[in-house]
C-alpha cells in the first residue's frame, strides 16, 4: 500500500478478513465434491430412456446397442450448443446410418423452446427430452454442452466439453477408429 499511509497494516497480526477468505474457499471446495461423479473416458455410459420428440415410443441408449452412439446434451438457450447442432447434422448425414447414431438429450425446461429452435434448424437425428435434468445429473455434467462418444460395448471413448468446430474432425477420426474395433460379447 502507499508508503505514506499512517498505520500501515504490515505491523499487525494476520488480519481477520484473510482467515475468513480461506474458510470460505474451503467451504466452496467441500461443496464441489458433493455433486455426482462426472462420467469420464473409459467408463460405462449409464443407460437411460427418455421420451422422443415427435414419436410416441421413448428411446434409450440400450435401443442403440451395437452401434457407435454420440450423446450430446444440449439446450436451446446454450449458444455453443446452437452452433454445434448443424455441424452434428452434417456429420450424421455424411456417415452410414447403420453403424452410427446421434442421440441428443435436450434439457430445456419448456419443450416449446426446443421445438422453436429445431423448426429453424431441423436435424435428422433423434432428440429425447429431459426437462427434469435426471440424465445430466446421472452423468455428473459439469458444463453445457457436454458430449460423449460411446463405443459398441457401451463404453465412453471420448468426451467433449463445450464445442469447438475442430471437434468434428476429432469425432470423425474417433468414429473411424471405433468402427474398425471388434465387438466383444457383451
Amino acid at each position, binding site marked *: 500500500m502507499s508508503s505514506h*499511509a499512517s498505520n*500501515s497494516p504490515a505491523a499487525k497480526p494476520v488480519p481477520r478478513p484473510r482467515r475468513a477468505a480461506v474458510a*470460505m474457499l474451503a467451504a*466452496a471446495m467441500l461443496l464441489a465434491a458433493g455433486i455426482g461423479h462426472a462420467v469420464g473416458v473409459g467408463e460405462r455410459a449409464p443407460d437411460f430412456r427418455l421420451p422422443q420428440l415427435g414419436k410416441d415410443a421413448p428411446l434409450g441408449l440400450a435401443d442403440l446397442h451395437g452401434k457407435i452412439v454420440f450423446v450430446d446434451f444440449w439446450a436451446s438457450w446454450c449458444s455453443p450448443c446452437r452452433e454445434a447442432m448443424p455441424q452434428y447434422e452434417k456429420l450424421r448425414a455424411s456417415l452410414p446410418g447403420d453403424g452410427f447414431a446421434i442421440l441428443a438429450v435436450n434439457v430445456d425446461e419448456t419443450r416449446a423452446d426446443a421445438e422453436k429452435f429445431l423448426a429453424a434448424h431441423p436435424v435428422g437425428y433423434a432428440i429425447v427430452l429431459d426437462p427434469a*435434468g435426471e440424465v445430466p445429473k446421472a452423468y455428473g455434467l*459439469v458444463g453445457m454442452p457436454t458430449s460423449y462418444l460411446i463405443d459398441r460395448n457401451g463404453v465412453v471413448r471420448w468426451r467433449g466439453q463445450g464445442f469447438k468446430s475442430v471437434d468434428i474432425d476429432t469425432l470423425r477420426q474417433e468414429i473411424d477408429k471405433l468402427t474398425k474395433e471388434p465387438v466383444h460379447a457383451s
Partner: protein
Amino acid sequence: MRPDLLLRLTCALACGAALAACATKPVQPWERAHLARWDMRWDPDSAQTAMKQHAYFSKEGSSGTIGAAGGGCGCN
C-alpha cells in the same frame, strides 16, 4: 478511509455473499437457461461500454472497471 479498511470491507462483503451462495442448492449447468441470456451477461454491449467508460474517464478523477484497461489518452 485507509486502503486496508477498504480490503476488509470488500472481503467481508465477498464472504457474506459466498456463504449465502453455499447455503442454497447449487445451480446445475443444465439449469442455467436464465443465466445464459444476453441480458444477464456482465457486459452485454462491450463496444458501447468501452466508449462510455472512456467518456467518463476523460472527465472524472477515478476510473476503470474490473478487467485489463488499455488505450489511455491525453484527455484534457
